[in-house]
């Protein structure tokens, strides 16, 4: 067995270089004291009673740093458009249908679909009370569609409905940001009446649950489109050539 072929000299040199860099970076990072970053978090935690959301991470994401989230949603939208543009340009489509093999697989996936979507909706609407939120719940909803694609290869999503949901939720999110500017004089102002009842109830937090529900719809539809394009890439290649 030739050692040079299994482990070329270049790989040995690069692994030694990586190890040296690792040791130096770890050496530098060991000097860092975490006390120096405490201020911003303490201020946000003190202000958090005003937003009336039980989850402080959610109020940082959607309220204190809410404009960052608008940019993040825009980046996700652009990436989805890029994936759709790239993969649809050369994706061969054909009308052939694969024979569905198993009845149990088909029925079981449809049964699980509703449960997974229900769990995703639960994660989205409890985003201001528990760990979770729009992004996580949206991805959970997309996994439901992934299960459907894996169980039934002939499945097709309605792109009209997905585009409608995505566009409407994105436009409403921007509208919420601008209404905040007019009513509260800051972008993304919390214009809904927010200390309703006790902190930790489902209807509390002003615009924070509204924003997370819109983000959830948007992320769910975008992730479903990405999943569909990547799954169909393999499917059409096998079906159309056969």
């Amino acid at each position, binding site marked *: 067995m030739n050692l040079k072929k299994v482990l070329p000299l*270049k*790989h040995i040199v*690069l*692994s030694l*270089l*990586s*190890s040296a*860099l*690792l040791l130096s*970076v*770890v050496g530098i*990072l*060991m000097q*860092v004291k*975490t006390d120096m*970053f*405490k201020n*911003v*978090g*303490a201020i*946000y*935690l*003190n202000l*958090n*009673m005003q937003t009336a959301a*039980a*989850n*402080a*991470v959610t*109020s*940082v*994401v959607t309220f204190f*740093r809410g404009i*960052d*989230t608008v940019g*993040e949603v825009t*980046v*996700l939208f*652009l*990436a*989805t458009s*890029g*994936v759709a543009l*790239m*993969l649809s*340009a*050369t994706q061969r489509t054909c009308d052939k249908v694969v024979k569905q093999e198993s009845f149990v697989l088909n029925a079981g996936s449809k049964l699980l679909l509703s449960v997974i979507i229900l769990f995703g909706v639960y994660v989205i609407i409890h985003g201001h*009370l*528990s*760990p979770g*939120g729009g*992004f996580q719940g949206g991805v959970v909803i997309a996994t439901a569609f992934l299960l459907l694609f894996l169980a039934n290869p002939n499945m097709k999503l309605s792109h009209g409905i997905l585009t409608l949901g995505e566009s409407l939720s994105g436009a409403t999110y921007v509208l919420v940001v601008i209404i905040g500017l007019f009513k509260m004089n800051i972008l993304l102002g919390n214009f809904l009446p927010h200390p309703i009842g006790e*902190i*930790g109830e489902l209807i509390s937090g002003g615009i924070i649950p509204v924003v997370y529900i819109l983000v959830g719809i948007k*992320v769910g539809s975008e992730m479903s489109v*990405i999943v569909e*394009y*990547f799954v169909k*890439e393999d499917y059409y290649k096998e079906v159309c050539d056969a």
Partner: protein
Amino acid sequence: MLDFFNNTQTIHMIIIIGSMALFFIGFYGIATQKNLVKVLVSFDIMESALFLFFIGLHYQVGLVAPIVDKNLKTFTGMVDPVPQAMILTTIVIGLAVLALGLSFGIEYYKLTGRNDISKMNELRD
């Protein structure tokens, strides 16, 4: 034995060494692999190392997650929520970049039949 780990300094040291080792595993993958998909997966490993690093370095022994509930009525004694929120943003951006990069890779493979990054010289001609 377990008291040794119940110490903020020790936990931070373990997190720094572990996450940076993971980071340089990803670095090694980018430097040595020639398959386009493997390079993108190495990028994702490096990203995961940074997530672990930022979240882990802001954990302190004795502080709880920044969520109030029935037993905990005020926002005191909690970890810093800002790095968690920022890493949430970064995870979504990383996912978007990975999806876009993989779609570019698939398209390149379909057009040329290759996925070797050392032979990508179409722009030279």
